């Protein structure tokens, strides 16, 4: 017995509400983030991630209050991502009660930001979020590239090389999202997950595409992920975190029950 694989429900928060889009459109309301976070905590979530999809400065304040409220009632690790661009953004989220922050496009724009953040706050709280899309054609060797702006903007950066670089710069964990799968409910991109997880020493969280409980198990067993992140299968009552863990445990994966 030893370290458990983690299940991390993800709450996409827009203007103080939990929403979940299907490939970034068709946003459905899934409730009050504080209530949703408490529910997942009771169900045995190992951590909770908040993704701030808010665009305006004013609405960002709402996110700080959400984190403050959750952190005074839920005593498991909390990660906040979305719009983290400066050392000051990180400090505010940590002071509000977040344990880790996810850095995405700011890292692509300026990789030194990751180094600076890790030196200042420690690698343990710096999660680099990578949005990757497959760019190799059928029959070619697999190749994935980093995309920004919700998967619309290619960068020309190879995903595996990027993950290695981010770890070298001080990332303590990688949150890997397949933009091909996100919102499709067709399962993780397992080849991508395995390629990144095998290439780096730090834990990798698989994200994007979970449609059924078996996908979570596959992410760990075939994708070699250390943790799995999912949103919609938990939000709309299809499954509880507890059910997901029992399903994983029944296939020999060590989980915290």
């Amino acid at each position, binding site marked *: *017995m*030893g*370290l*458990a*694989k*983690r299940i991390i429900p993800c709450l996409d928060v827009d203007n103080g509400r939990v929403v979940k889009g299907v490939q970034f459109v068709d946003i459905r309301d899934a409730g009050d983030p504080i209530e949703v976070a408490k529910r997942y*905590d009771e169900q045995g979530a*190992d951590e909770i991630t908040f993704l701030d999809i808010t665009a305006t400065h004013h609405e960002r304040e709402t996110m700080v209050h959400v984190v403050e409220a959750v*952190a*005074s*009632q839920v*005593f*498991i*690790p909390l990660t906040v991502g979305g719009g983290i661009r400066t050392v000051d953004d990180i400090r505010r989220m*940590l*002071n*509000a*009660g*977040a*344990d880790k922050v996810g850095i995405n496009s700011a890292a692509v724009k300026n990789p030194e930001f990751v180094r600076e953040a890790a030196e200042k*706050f*420690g*690698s*343990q*709280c710096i999660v680099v979020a990578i949005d990757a899309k497959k760019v190799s054609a059928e029959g070619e060797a697999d190749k994935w590239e980093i995309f920004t702006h919700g998967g619309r903007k290619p960068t020309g950066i190879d995903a595996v090389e990027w993950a290695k670089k981010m770890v070298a710069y001080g990332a*303590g*964990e990688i949150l890997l999202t397949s933009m091909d799968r996100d919102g499709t409910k067709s399962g993780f991109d397992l080849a991508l997950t395995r390629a990144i997880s095998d290439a780096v*020493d*730090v*834990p*990798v969280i698989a994200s994007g595409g979970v449609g059924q409980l078996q996908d979570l198990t596959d992410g760990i067993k075939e994708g070699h992920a*250390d*943790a799995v992140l999912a949103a919609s299968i938990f939000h709309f009552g299809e499954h509880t975190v507890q059910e997901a863990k029992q399903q994983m445990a029944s296939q020999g994966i060590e989980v*915290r029950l």
Partner: protein
Amino acid sequence: MRRVAVIDYGMGNLRSVSKALESVSDNQTEVLVSADPDTILSASHVLFPGVGAMRDCILELNKLGLDEVVLEAAKTKPFLGICLGMQALLSHSEENNGVKALDIIAGEVKRFPNPLMADGEKLKVPHMGWNQVHQTSNHVLWKDIQQDSRFYFVHSYYVSPEDPAVTSATSSYPDEFTVAIQQDNVFAAQFHPEKSQHAGLQLLKNFVNWDGQS
């Protein structure tokens, strides 16, 4: 009236620790986050947290004049070290090319081997997530916590005390290592009780109620 002082020396966010302490405290307990030596030394209980690197930890303590305060508190009061706040209690750390630590508990802080192998597979470092904690003593801080409960960890270094009798709990990754130590009025944990849900809150509750007798 109990007063629990959380030592604030700029190493990480203390909101989680103070909120967790407040959630297990009754109205006879006050939780203070402080860098002031007098406030810390007049408290009934002292919690020494910390995340980040050992060299910064020791430098910050020295800069704020809190090294002596920690030494004093660790002699006299119910004292709880968490994560880096545990490692700093040892004699010396391998981190940052070697750092002399507070030497309250004899021993070394070592890094997990690189690569860390188990059954032909590479394990990730940091050791991050929920691992089972095997209690090896009947310390009062384990009261009402089930044997082998899971606690949340995030660290790349671990403690190796000289005297095995100070080990209060162990975990495996993949080899067994010390995750909690006890010595007189001092207790320390590598895991984060403030992030370990029910089991963690119970440990903090036991600490707040502890009279410092081992």
